[in-house]
């Protein structure tokens, strides 16, 4: 199809597309002519459409540079995993704290009444404080749900954008690693913060690495 550069082109295209009789198109042409005369130059509508097309292309490019697919496939799952790990770690620590509190409570029973009462009150405070795990767990669940909503929105955005430029997997891995690297401002190339359960090295493994290094030096 020829490019539409003038109102005459437009009327011809309309004529071809719609099969409208020429006497009606004259009216359309007059309207378009009047419209075009209001634009700042003689190729007004075409230029405006071109600008619109350029804007859409630019926006697509910018949105594409945010790499929404990467956000959906890597960042959000990674964030969810980290949040799940927080819940697991706090649950485990809470049980350990309560184990210790149970021991203290048993021992408190053997003390004189005044001391026993004080110790029991302290243990009660420990139990009460441990409810933080439930509260924080529920808050983290809320955040995970928000992430799911963001994921859904990204899905819709990706759908609206159509086919985007292919993503470089190595670049994604680097970006995810960078995002989850320790934010304390240290050496970003080596600090990763706490590893997820199952991915962390045990003390025995660290010891083995150290002894290996000792043997090598």
């Amino acid at each position, binding site marked *: 199809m020829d490019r539409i550069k003038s109102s005459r082109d437009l009327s011809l295209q309309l004529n071809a597309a719609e099969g409208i009789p020429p006497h009606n198109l004259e009216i359309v042409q007059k309207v378009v002519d009047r419209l075009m005369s209001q634009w700042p130059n003689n190729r007004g509508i075409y230029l405006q459409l071109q600008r619109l097309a350029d804007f859409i292309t630019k926006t697509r490019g910018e949105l594409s540079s945010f790499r929404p697919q990467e956000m959906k496939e890597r960042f959000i799952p990674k964030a969810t995993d980290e949040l799940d790990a927080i819940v697991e770690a706090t*649950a485990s620590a809470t049980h350990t704290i309560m184990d210790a509190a149970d021991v203290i409570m048993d021992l408190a029973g053997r003390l004189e009444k005044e001391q026993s009462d004080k110790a029991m009150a302290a243990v009660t405070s420990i139990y009460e404080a441990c*409810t*933080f795990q439930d509260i924080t767990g529920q808050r983290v669940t809320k955040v995970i749900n928000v992430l799911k909503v963001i994921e859904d929105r990204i899905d819709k955005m990706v759908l609206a954008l159509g086919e985007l430029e292919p993503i470089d997997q190595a670049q994604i891995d680097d970006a995810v690693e960078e995002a989850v690297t320790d934010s304390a401002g240290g050496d970003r190339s080596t600090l990763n913060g706490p590893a997820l359960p199952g991915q962390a090295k045990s003390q025995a493994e660290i010891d083995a690495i150290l002894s290996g290094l000792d043997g090598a030096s």
Partner: protein
Amino acid sequence: MSVDLKMPVLVVDDYATMLRIVKNLLKQIGFENVDEASDGGQAFQMMKFKKYGLVISDWNMQPTSGIDLLRNVRGDADLKGTPFIMVTAESKTDNVIEAKNAGVSNYIVKPFSSEILKGKIASVLGQF
């Protein structure tokens, strides 16, 4: 009538830590006979087989929530009179009203203290 501290109490929560905390606090208050359930469905089944003198339940649980458990209990001819305390992080007025309309005996907002737990139990069962 004085409160029978030996009566069975059912604590319902999907967080293992909360089950343990409430159980320990109940023990300190004097209740030794405490059972646990991790959701409303399991709790309701347990109530069918054992008569509990008090139910202390969380609200937000899967698959059966605390409010559904409460409605099931109040709708059951044998169980409808069971004292039922909701212990939850839901603190909106609408939630409290909904629980009250469903027949809750009392409502405790998390986090809570042992003193509040004891006070609410006393308000439901009588002083002990």
